Structure formats: C-alpha cells, structure tokens
C-alpha cells in the first residue's frame, strides 16, 4: 500500500529530523557551541545545563537513532534489511568512538590525507579524533539508540499493517 508506505517514511523522517534538532540543541546550549558545525555560535546560556547529565550522552543516542530511522525510511520496501541497517550503523558509530582512544587516535589522524584540510567538515576530522574522548557510556548510548530505532521502526510497521 503506497499511501501507508509514504506515511511511514514521512513519520520516520520527521522523527529523525526532530532528533537531530535535539542533538544540535545539546551542542548549542549545553556545550557552548563546541562543535565545528556551530563555529561562530555565541551561547549566552550560562546557567545549569538544559539537558542535565543526560546531555553528556544524548548526542550519540539521538544520532544513531536518527540515522537508522532515515536509513529505514530509505529502505522501507525491504524491511528484512532492518537488522543489517541497525547492526551496520551501530558498528560504524562505534568505530568512530573507538578511534578516539589513544594512541589509535594519533594513527587515525595522521592517516588522513592532507587534502582533507581543504575540505569543509573533513578538516575537522583530525580534531574529532585527537580531541575527542572515548567513553564507554557513549558506546552504550549508541547501542540504546540503535535498539530504540529498531523498536520504533517495527512499531510503526505494525501500526500501519493493521
């Protein structure tokens, strides 16, 4: 049923966009704009953190969740691929986390080609690995995000099939 399919996709994409906005808010408000994509952002929020301690791991949670939702929307006709999407993206996010462990971070940063330095966003790659901190709780939050994504997609599927 194409109409139901489109509704599912729209729901998944809307949820993903909402989640990414939450992730941006964490960086913009609680972390004073300490991210490449917020260069120039002047955070005037100097009170208690808006998201509290949850904000420490919220970005990794919502990012893995949002990306899987978008991928699930793209691959909506092939619902059997959902477990592969979940596991695949969880693995990729974990690799980025593990890449921040010293001395691996140095190897990763030094392996980046020089032309990255001239490409917006990619130029922040070395900083991401060298200045980022590996945290097992981030890995946990990525896992929770992936699991939540799986549950949400399956729930929406069931809702539409009724």
């Amino acid at each position, binding site marked *: *049923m*194409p109409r139901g*399919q489109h509704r599912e996709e729209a729901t998944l994409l809307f949820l993903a966009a909402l989640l*990414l906005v939450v992730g941006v808010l964490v*960086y913009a408000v609680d*972390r004073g*704009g*300490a*991210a*490449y*994509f*917020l*260069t*120039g952002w*002047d955070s005037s929020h100097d009170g208690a953190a808006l998201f509290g301690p949850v904000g420490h791991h919220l*970005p990794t949670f919502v*990012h893995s969740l949002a*990306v899987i939702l*978008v*991928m699930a929307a*793209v*691959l909506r*006709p*092939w619902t059997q691929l959902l477990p592969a999407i979940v596991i695949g*993206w969880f693995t*990729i*996010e974990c690799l*980025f986390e593990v890449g921040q462990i*010293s*001395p691996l*971070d*140095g*190897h990763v*940063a*030094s*392996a*980046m*080609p*020089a032309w*990255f*330095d*001239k*490409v*917006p*966003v*990619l*130029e*922040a*790659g*070395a*900083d*991401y*690995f*060298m*200045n*980022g901190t590996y945290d097992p709780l981030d890995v946990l939050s990525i896992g929770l995000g992936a699991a939540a994504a799986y549950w949400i997609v399956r729930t929406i599927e069931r809702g539409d099939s009724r």
Partner: protein
Amino acid sequence: MIRTDDNPSPWRALWLIPVSVFAVLTIVATGGGGGDDDGGGGGSIDDVDPGAVNLLPSYNFFLTNDSDPGTALLTASLASGTLVSFDIDGLLANTLDISVDSNNEVTFLSYVARRSSQFDLLVMSMPITPIDGRFTVILTEDLTFDTIGAPPTSGAFDVIKSPDSISVTVVAGGVELSLNGGEAISYTWDEFANLLDDETQEAWLRQASLAGGAFELLYGYFFDVADILDELELATVTNPLVESCDMFTGSPPDGVLAQGEVTVTWTGSGELSEGDDFVWDFNQCWFDEPNDVTDELLDGTVLLENYTETVDFDTNTLFEIGFGGLSGQPGGVILDLTVSETVEDNGVFTIAADDVISIYGGFAMIIQAP
C-alpha cells in the same frame, strides 16, 4: 509503470549513499569546536592582531614525522659515527602549561608526554655496535616534566627491542631500570645519561640511556622552535630579524667567532599567513648557560616550513599554531645543524672532537587548544 511495495525500484537504495555520507559528516562535525580557519566560516590569522590574541593556560602539542618523503627522519649523527633517527609512530601527544604576562610574553612552565605515545629509534653504527637496531619507546605512564629542560619528575616508559623489554621508571633524582621484569637497578640522572657512552655497560642499559637522551633531544628542539613563535610576527616586519648570540667570555675555540649571530628570514610577502616559510640561520651562535662550564655552539640552518596559525574568532583565542600538520600536510621543522659542546678552562674555550653532533631531518609540530 507504477511501482508498489512489492515492486520497489532498486535505485532507491542508492539514497543510502548520501544518507551515509551526511551521517558520517555529522559525526565529524561534532569535533573541531572552537577552531576556525578559512573553511570554518570565521576569522583567520589575517583578521586578527596577533599581539591581541589571547592564550589559554594549557595547550596540547603534537609531534609527528615530516610527511615530505624528501625529508629525512629527524636524525642525530654522533661523533662516534652512530646515527640515531626518530620515527614517530602516529602522533606524539603532549600537554603544555604556560603562563602569559601582561605583555603577552609566554613562559613555558611544564609539560606532560602522554601515556601510550610512542616512537621508534633507529640506531646504525659503522662498525656495528651492540646498541644498533630499531627499538620502540612507549610511554607506559604520563611522563611529567615540571621544569622545561630538566629531567622528568614522574612517569615511566618501556624500551622494546624484541624479545627484550626494558622498563624505565622515574624515581626521585633518577631512574630505575629493569630488563624483562627483572630486578630494578637505580641510577641518578647523570649516571643514566652516561650509560650510553660507556662501552663496558650491557647493551640494554645503553639503549635505555639512549631512549632517555632521545626525549631530551626531541623536546629540546620542540621548545627551541616554540620559543621563537612569538617572534615570527616581528620577523615579518624587520625581515630579516637578526640577533647577536652570546659573546664568548674568554678565548673562543679555534676558528669560531667571538660573537656569532642568528637570523630569521621570512620568505613570504604581504602579511604573515598560512603556509609561510621561515629560514632560521645560526652562524656560529653560542649559548652561554650561566653557572655551567659546558655550553652549546650552533652552526647551520633550521627551515620552518608551512606555518599554520588559527585563532578562535569568537574569543580571539589562539587555537592552533605550528609548522606542518597532523594529517600529512607538508612542512615542519627541518634541521641541518652542527651542535658543538664548548668547555671552558681558565677562560679558554675548546671543543672536543667527540662533543660534536650533526642534526638533520625534520618533524612536524602543532600546538593546539585542548
């Protein structure tokens, strides 16, 4: 043809490519906060008066091999004919504490070579000696230097030359050395340094001593270069910047000027900008260490290639400065120096033949906000 759920277009799956790229970029984009450069949408060094740039109390600094295949590894050629080369494995990561006075004059206070950083030492002699070979130096604990130029006050590193592993642990006034977990032997710092040249000592002790000296040499050159970073702006104005070295306080060694000079030449034009090069030329430049009968005489050139400086436009805070890059960018600090040790005896300075070393090759260095 109308497709349905049962007959989807396989091309649709291609949307996964931009989605994945976007997803990866959004991960990377969470890094590099506070930084700024041409592509970052903020100000660069060209926009900021360097004298007004704020400095943080603490910076990270990274050392790595010069990526230019035409540049040799940083190598010390000892008078004995032994060559010692540094092959930095990835990045050598460190933390540096500084103080800044009201004139923005920077004083380096202390630094920490971070645990798990590592480099290889390649030792080659003619004829071959027992310390020859390639061995790896790995920091097993943070190596803390409370004073610049002084031995560390705490920390530990291993010197590994398969199948042997030498543990070097900093203790009060010196080190403890242990081979393959065996009994630890204590040495004062002077004893430890002298092990290298003592051919009666076992090879593993001399290799450990060499590794200790390697830290001193590598970080010594890093701080030499770091020390002139705040003079580079001046060099672009006076170009070249010429300064007199210390004058010998007695008869100089044969063939050596009573007072040499050091020249910093900027090869760029206009305003100091990214990618600029400097030539740091030492003409028989003598450095008098007060209260020390042995001093250093430098002769030769240090090329400072591919200058980089990035300022956080929002806070006008220095984010990054150095030569070369961490990700394979060309440039760095490239030395071609002869370093001689002068000794004074009743007002007469001499240089012993075995106290002359040549330093050549290079490394990249970047100081970066944490």
